[in-house]
């Protein structure tokens, strides 16, 4: 039971929750039951059916409504006298500035993407407000505590970047199913149903360039008066037949690789059969259109044969043109779009078949293509409990007792929850320690625009940057800028760095700031002529910004867009130990102050971007020092905590 001190600290506290999803629902409930009386909660999402297996504050009837608002209403039903303020908004909005954050005693994150977490991290640093971070994926989870100056900030330890694949692997030499998914989703689907003006790498580059008289554009367009059946087969034959033959003509590529085989629709589905396809759609609404239903394929967990996949491919394509014509030309892949998922699954499977890669079910393909994170209620409940425990310590400024806690899938040395002392801030962290970064770039070729997009926004996570050299502002974003400045900045974007009004050259130091995040850092520029197209496709190399290693050979499906955990993976390496051996439990807790404990090779699950599928970083950690102090903690001399009759 909480002590009197704890109870009054809780009662007085003003708490900000960011995220009202899996962790958020559990956390709001636990905060309310623990006696917190003033809670603010930000979430931009609306409720979906797939949330309902764990976001228990929501009901079927709430689908489509604001998570923050519905969560608040649900909790008020069992704690009517507390104050919960919901914001159906993006935490990156300008109103959630440093002054807003300063109002709170602690910030609790229950987010599902790296971008927002970094943003909140910077605001908490700027406002000097403690941050309790968390994440879950399946059975894994973790809770971490961040206090400016005392512990690492969220960005002190690099978080792995989302996994991306070399273009040629996707277009020419896939070796894994995920490569086929990326091809089907980002190339074929985009080409057929997405924005026609977008660049698309779909056509294989062959050594025989001057061959075809057809422009690639024409191939994918449905011709006037062309039968949809014909069109479908034409596309099929082009991407699975013709393109493969063209790729095969380049002998070099296949010297050390298994050759793909071209597949033509007439060999898989003799003409007559497709005409028998499909139960009539019975006038179903455009949204419900499904090739699986049409073909009576009932189970999304089944792995379809090449024939079935081909049927789905043709049928899905047909249904798009017949029932969803108006969507064509502006569709992006959406994992909740059944027909899109069916099409991508089928296309990926046919390609996989061609390359000798094992086929996958729609269920599996959807997970990969949609970057779906697997999730259960219990892990979120555990993590929420741990968040509240840490939050209470924070409110009491109980500095020696903050813990980073990792929730494992399997016990390690009989422990399922692994508490670890936080580290001191990383002195090289460019976010909290103001260490300068270095950028190698060709200052004569690189435009300011590329610098802004690829470095400032993508890598450094700034949303509204201000870029200066000395006293000269090269670029800024803002609402109250003068007209002529806006013109100058727009012009600057198109200029090479060396041609800017304040020229950038080797030795230049740029200061980059995001006023909203109140985050500033300096970048030392070094000119370099050449960059490797494959390894450094951006033509820029940023250092001092440490990126965690990405495991190239990983087969496991992904991390993602949705939810994220930076938990330690299950400790398979430790299971071989003899757990029966008795460990000395009397290790005295070292005072937190000043001691940095090294966890060797902490590995983390990726929290990637929406831009592509990603993989789990599987570096296996070496032995961890188990924090055995917990036995001591439990046996407090305070028997009152045990026996006191609970009061409301």
């Amino acid at each position, binding site marked *: 039971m909480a002590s009197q001190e704890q109870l009054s600290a809780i009662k007085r506290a003003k708490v900000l929750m960011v995220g009202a999803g899996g962790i958020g629902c559990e956390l709001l409930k636990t905060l309310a039951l623990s006696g917190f009386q003033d809670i603010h909660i930000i979430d931009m999402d609306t409720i979906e059916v797939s949330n309902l297996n764990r976001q228990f504050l929501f009901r079927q009837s709430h689908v489509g409504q604001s998570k923050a608002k519905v969560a608040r209403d649900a909790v008020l039903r069992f704690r009517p006298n507390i104050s919960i303020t919901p914001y159906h908004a993006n935490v990156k909005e300008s109103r959630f500035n440093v002054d807003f954050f300063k109002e709170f005693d602690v910030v609790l994150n229950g987010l599902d993407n790296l971008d927002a977490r970094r943003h909140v991290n910077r605001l908490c640093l700027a406002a000097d407000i403690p941050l309790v971070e968390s994440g879950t994926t399946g059975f894994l989870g973790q809770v971490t505590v961040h206090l400016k100056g005392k512990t690492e900030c969220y960005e002190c330890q690099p978080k792995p970047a989302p996994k991306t694949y070399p273009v040629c692997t996707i277009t020419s030499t896939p070796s894994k199913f995920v490569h086929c998914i990326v091809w089907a989703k980002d190339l074929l689907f985009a080409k057929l149903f997405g924005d026609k003006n977008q660049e698309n790498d779909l056509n294989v580059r062959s050594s025989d360039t001057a061959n075809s008289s057809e422009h690639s554009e024409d191939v994918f367009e449905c011709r006037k008066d062309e039968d949809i059946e014909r069109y479908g087969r034409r596309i099929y034959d082009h991407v699975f037949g013709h393109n493969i033959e063209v790729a095969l003509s380049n002998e070099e590529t296949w010297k050390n690789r298994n050759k793909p085989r071209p597949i033509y629709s007439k060999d898989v589905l003799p003409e007559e059969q497709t005409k028998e396809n499909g139960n009539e759609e019975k006038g179903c609404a455009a949204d419900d259109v499904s090739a699986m239903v049409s073909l009576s394929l009932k189970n999304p967990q089944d792995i379809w044969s090449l024939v079935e996949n081909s049927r789905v491919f043709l049928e899905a394509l047909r249904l798009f043109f017949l029932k969803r014509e108006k969507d064509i030309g502006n569709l992006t892949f959406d994992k909740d779009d059944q027909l899109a998922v069916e099409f991508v699954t089928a296309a990926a499977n046919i390609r996989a078949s061609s390359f000798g890669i094992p086929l996958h079910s729609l269920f599996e393909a959807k997970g990969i293509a949609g970057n*779906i994170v697997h999730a259960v209620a219990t892990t979120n409940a555990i993590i929420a409990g741990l968040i509240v425990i840490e939050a209470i310590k924070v409110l009491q400024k109980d500095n020696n007792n903050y813990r980073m806690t990792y929730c494992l899938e399997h016990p390690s040395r009989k422990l399922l929850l692994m508490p670890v002392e936080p580290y001191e801030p990383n002195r090289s962290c460019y976010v909290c320690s103001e260490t300068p970064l270095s950028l190698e770039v060709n200052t004569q070729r690189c435009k300011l625009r590329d610098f802004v997009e690829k470095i400032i926004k993508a890598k450094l996570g700034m949303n509204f940057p201000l870029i200066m050299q000395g006293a000269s502002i090269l670029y800024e974003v803002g609402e109250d800028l003068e007209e002529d400045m806006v013109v100058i900045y727009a012009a600057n974007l198109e200029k090479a760095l060396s041609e800017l009004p304040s020229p950038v050259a080797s030795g230049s130091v740029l200061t980059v700031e995001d006023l909203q995040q109140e985050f500033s850092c300096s970048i030392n520029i070094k000119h370099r002529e050449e960059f490797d197209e494959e390894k450094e496709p951006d033509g820029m190399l940023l250092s001092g910004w440490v990126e965690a290693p990405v495991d190239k050979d990983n087969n496991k499906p992904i991390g993602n867009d949705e939810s994220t955990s930076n938990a330690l993976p299950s400790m398979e390496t430790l299971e071989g130990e003899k757990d029966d051996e008795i460990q000395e439990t009397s290790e005295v807790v070292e005072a937190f102050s000043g001691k940095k404990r090294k966890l060797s090779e902490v590995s983390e699950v990726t929290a990637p971007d929406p831009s592509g599928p990603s993989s789990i970083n599987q570096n296996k950690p070496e032995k961890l020092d188990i924090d055995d102090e917990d036995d001591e903690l439990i046996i407090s001399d305070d028997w009152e905590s045990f026996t006191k009759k609970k009061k409301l």
Partner: protein
Amino acid sequence: MDGEELTEQETALYDRQIRVWGADAQRRLSKSHILVCGMKGTVAEFCKNIVLAGVGSVTLVDDRIVTDESLSANFLILPHENHYNGKTLAEVCCDSLKEFNHMVHVAVETGDISTFGVEFFEKFDAVIISCCSLGKKKLINQKCRKLSKRVAFYTVECRGSCGEMFVDLLDYKYSKKKLEETIECQIEYPSFEEAISVPWRALPRRVSKLYFAMRVIEQFEDVEGRNPGETTIADLPGVLKLRKELCETNVQY
């Protein structure tokens, strides 16, 4: 519900968790029946989780009338006069739990669980009891163990910020993946009575001191005829005295 396959509704709702434990486990869950006795904090959490997960049914036992105090740490009870006036804990929790998942059958069973015959327990795949006396725990555990079918038995007790859970899966066979192989394993679980009868001296050194503390309180409540969880600060001298006695007894050969 469809014969063997998951329905479309189930697939849509359970998508994220099927990706954790697989469709087969989900199917087995949907056919399981759980008995829960003692509707307090941890058990309320458990019920929420198991209902969300999509078990076949949950049967609640708790004839205690809802009071203001029941509201603490139990979010299944809504503090409206009309909502709980005169109702039992099981009844109120049942109403709330039904809302979490319409596909789960949630029901109430009245009466003293220790008087139910062995056949009653046979209906279930798992039994969870809380807020029960030492005697009751032993008794129900024994009844479950008498059945030819395996009925998993769990007890959970929370006191302040400490808690304890006991698990009895009887003769339990499972598979374990080690690197590339799958190993068949087996554990024989002791009964609750057997487990707590192990002399303290014989226990591994790493056993949490909380285990012993729980045994002391348990004994105290048993000897003094208290309801579980009703030991107060005023009892401290008595509890400490008992602790001393138990330590001395258990340290001897």
